């Protein structure tokens, strides 16, 4: 195996650590797995064109998600401009015994607004702080808490309606 240049190795490590979680975020926020594939590549292309080397390693993940969110917004704008909406994907799983998971994914895709999914995902899956979420989504820091609260209550109601209690929502 050939040695990679230091920058490539650094990027490779970062890519291995972040690509799956970024894809998950893009997929659930765009509500389409196929769109997420393209958006993922576009995000990393833009990241590589930026001055990522000058950032502290701790800031890079935040910066990547910020770029990803911009790419996502561009994607939504393009969709609006062309007035061509692809149907939302139906969430697929590999196992046949995963009705709970399919329902949960479809609740996120069909019942929640994109922004709500985005906020919930950044806060609870990626565990960004409210300040970071505000910077990523270009919202005011003060409005994150109420928006998150409303999105959380809405999802909790939907989960209850779908018959999920605390125990059923837990990962098997």
């Amino acid at each position: 195996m050939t040695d990679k240049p230091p920058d490539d190795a650094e990027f490779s490590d970062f890519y291995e650590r972040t690509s799956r979680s970024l894809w998950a975020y893009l997929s659930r926020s765009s509500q389409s797995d196929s769109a997420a594939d393209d958006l993922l590549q576009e995000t990393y292309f833009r990241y590589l064109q930026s001055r990522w080397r000058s950032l502290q390693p701790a800031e890079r993940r935040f910066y990547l998600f910020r770029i990803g969110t911009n790419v996502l917004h561009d994607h939504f704008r393009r969709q609006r401009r062309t007035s061509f909406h692809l149907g939302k994907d139906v969430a697929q799983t590999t196992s046949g015994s995963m009705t709970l998971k399919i329902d949960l994914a479809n609740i996120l895709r069909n019942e929640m607004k994109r922004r709500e999914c985005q906020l919930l995902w950044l806060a609870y899956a990626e565990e960004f702080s409210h300040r970071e979420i505000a910077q990523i989504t270009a919202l005011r820091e003060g409005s994150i808490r109420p928006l998150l609260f409303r999105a959380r209550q809405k999802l909790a109601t939907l989960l209850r309606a779908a018959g999920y209690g605390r125990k059923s929502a837990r990962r098997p």
Partner: protein
Amino acid sequence: MNDQGKGCPSEEQLLQAISTDELPKWTEHIGSCSECQALIAVVEAIRCESHLAQGQARPPSTQWILFQADMRRRRAAAATVTLPLKMVGRFAFLAGLVVAMAVWYSVGSGVTSWCEAISTGSNQPAPVLFVAAASVPAFFVMALVLRTLWAED
């Protein structure tokens, strides 16, 4: 979790407790607090979904991303280099058009008078014609020089 004096832990405390499996510490409170129950249900659901989605992800290899990014960078650089050339070409075309119009008006609209003026050696339209004739190779030379300079970059 809220500020209504119900003795709820803060959102951060609860998230920390979920992550570190210290939730039993708050069991009694959570049992009687619908807001904390909602938060926990949502956080667990989202994390479960995140775990599943990450399992579905099939990101391309790092090498492919780096290669494509490099190709894109080269294409962008090529576009940057050729942009001034295109501008010079458009400018040359417009300048040629303006010169041609100027010649047309200075000589008069009659084609015969123009040809006659050249054949009789009248020196009235000659300078304008020379400018028009010389401008074309001049712009060619300029475009070539610029192309050579920028191609080296």
